[in-house]
């Protein structure tokens, strides 16, 4: 049992099973987690951002980053044609080099899941669907659950849900906890399997690092498979310090429970240089165990083309340009 868990009141020696027994016990636990010093956290994230990733390390990291992308389109203007073309891009990111890895998943709205599923049939690329009244999450619970079940029924491999930030910010932690639990149930397919559940915090709305740490533990206790920073739909999306804090949370959760949880920063990660910084954070905070698409993802759209351009540069020694990667 991790000493971090022991650090929180109400769980010393008792494990984490009864933490959510009541609103009071859950609140005691979350507020008993060690505080986060903002200056120190940001300094550490910035320091890791100065690592110099060159040559063979860069080639490795570019391919790893491509394989970790949830290639995303979440627009009101999405059409069947747009989603299909994105799926083809995800399967063959660089038509000039068949050795380019495939992305991890294509991320779409629930009504596009069937289209994506068909377009990706026979590949290892997953279909991820946002759900639960994404991005605001402002709907009644039955609507959110129906939204989720619909996406799962259409074949979604992964569900990206949003938490109720209003409930979280007003301190109704148990409500958030139970909602995650319910969505997790809605992810079950009836054959004993379930869609993977990613829980989005919208950290730009939670604002404080203490809130992000509490939300991380709340979601992990409630059964999230992944914790995810953002929807990409608000002003502040994934940042290195927020992601670093969530990496520390999954590290501590594994030490406390033995259960490994994945992390997905999303929104605002557009360049290879950014992606390298995130991979360095994963490497130096969590190490080998998390350096795979099973445990770390990038929620991104334009990142892929920048990675492809850098990959071509490493391969050919020349910079090409945006006309040498496909726009989908």
């Amino acid at each position, binding site marked *: 049992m991790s*000493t971090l868990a022991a650090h929180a009141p109400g769980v010393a020696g008792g494990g984490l099973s009864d933490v959510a027994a009541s609103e009071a016990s859950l609140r005691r636990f979350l507020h008993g987690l060690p505080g986060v010093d903002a200056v120190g956290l940001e300094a550490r994230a910035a320091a890791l951002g100065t690592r110099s990733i060159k040559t063979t390390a860069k080639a490795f990291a570019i391919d790893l980053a491509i394989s970790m992308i949830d290639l995303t389109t979440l627009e009101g203007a999405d059409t069947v044609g747009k989603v299909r073309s994105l799926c083809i891009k995800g399967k063959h990111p660089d038509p000039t080099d068949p050795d380019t890895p495939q992305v991890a998943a294509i991320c779409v709205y629930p009504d596009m899941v069937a289209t994506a599923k068909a377009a990706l049939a026979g590949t290892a690329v997953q279909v991820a669907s946002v759900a639960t009244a994404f991005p605001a999450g402002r709907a009644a619970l039955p609507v959110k659950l129906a939204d989720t079940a619909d996406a799962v029924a259409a074949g979604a491999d992964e569900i990206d849900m949003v938490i109720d930030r209003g409930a979280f910010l007003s301190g109704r932690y148990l409500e958030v906890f139970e909602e995650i639990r319910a969505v997790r149930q809605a992810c079950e397919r009836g054959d004993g399997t379930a869609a993977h559940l990613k829980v989005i915090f919208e950290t730009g709305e939670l604002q404080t690092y203490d809130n992000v740490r509490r939300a991380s533990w709340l979601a992990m206790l409630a059964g999230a498979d992944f914790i995810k920073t953002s929807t990409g739909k608000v002003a502040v999306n994934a940042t290195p310090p927020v992601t670093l804090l969530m990496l520390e949370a999954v590290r501590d959760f594994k030490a406390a429970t033995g259960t490994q949880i994945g992390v997905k920063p999303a929104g605002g990660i557009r360049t290879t240089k950014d992606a390298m910084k995130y991979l360095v954070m994963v490497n130096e905070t969590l190490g080998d165990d998390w350096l795979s698409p099973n445990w770390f993802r990038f929620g991104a759209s334009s990142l892929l083309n920048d990675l492809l351009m850098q990959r071509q540069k490493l391969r050919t020694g020349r910079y090409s340009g945006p006309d040498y990667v496909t726009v989908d």
Partner: protein
Amino acid sequence: MAKKNVAKDVPAAARPVFEYAPAPESPAAAGELATSYGHFIGGEFVDSSGSEALKTVNPATEQVLAEFAQGTEEDVDRAVAAARAAFADWSALPGSERAKYLFRIARIVQERSRELAVLESIDNGKPIKETRDVDLPLVAAHFFYYAGWADKLDFAGFGPNPKPLGVAGQVIPWNFPLLMLAWKIAPALATGNTVVLKPAETTPLTALRFAEICRQAGLPKGVVNIVTGDGRTGAALTAHPDVSKVAFTGSTAVGRAIAKQLAGSRKKLSLELGGKAANIVFDDAPIDQAVEGIVNGIFFNQGHVCCAGSRLLVQESVQDELLDALKRRMATLRVGDPLDKNTDVGAINSAAQLARITELAAAGEAEGAERWAPACELPAAGYWFRPTLFTGVSQAHRIAREEIFGPVLSVLTFRTPAEAVEKANNTQYGLSAGIWTEKGSRILWTADRLRAGVVWANTFNKFDPTSPFGGYKESGYGREGGRHGLEAYLDV
């Protein structure tokens, strides 16, 4: 650990998935090195009157970088005479004119920062990451900051038109060669003094390169003079009768000797000496950030920091949790080639310092403390010491009392805030301290009771030219930096 170090002792299957390829900064960026150097006196590079030469080596390779002169009494006399001759005109310049030179020096330092960073790293052994991101930005910042004071001395709180002292004799250490030069020279020049500076005998190269910058900036001849050599040269400088002010940063033993030498003279003296700082972690500390602060406190610059957080005082109730996290973090420190941009801990500055660290660490084990260091192979050549942790340390152990000046952390525990303060203050030194707690009132309560010149709260080893720095007790007297730093160079 650095890539090349992993291969030998870790089986292939256990090698990290994501290995960083070497990312070396080019040693050629340091610019041309002469095979031998003389002094910088009266605006010219001159030969020593004596024939003795010393060698400076790259501590990461033990290769000789250059020879330099062992300054004689005659050399020191020439340098002091040059500084005295320059004093009248320099001190008579309007402050705004002196400021122009300092601003110019600051800008040239910025422009040549890569060259200076690489040169410092080669001569000192510290990682390029630190010279690039810490030393050089601070050097420029000190010159900019004191340039700003030069025409505002009337408003510094020392009365109208405060007068400079004359010739300042300055002796600096090897741990931050160029930064300590900046701490000494910038306030001295801003206040109208002229300077004879002696760099340390293991790290003379950046001071000699700085002499070039003085020429490039068109600084009047004799305002800054650099005389190299070992302690004999330093003693000749501090003893010189025409030196009006002595500023020394270094060991307490030498500081004590200088204080004796100067007793009864009219020379003004400031001393910045050793330390044995307590880094106090309360049970409500932000643990992850405290771990970073502890690592930064003791492993920054290989622990060659007078204000290093070399004693970790941790509240017993969080000891296990904190030490687990600290060890996990220490295992990710990359020790090796200082010029690799991903190196966190570089080479120990000299064979003599390595011997001292080794001896004290051995004493720690012999006295019964428990030693721990992450598994990492060290390069074959050069001077290296693993980042090391001692637990089970008591106040009576030598490693809790003596300044190790290396990457060695002594861990002690406490039960109550009062005990933390008592143990933190129970040292002959008083240079710095750190407090880690989420509770603001506890920070203030503790800081009020710590007898240390600098107290950091939820951070460590943060420096800024606007902030005064200096010690209590055997850590010295006088302050450097900030408005307070002006006083050491004014006749007030």
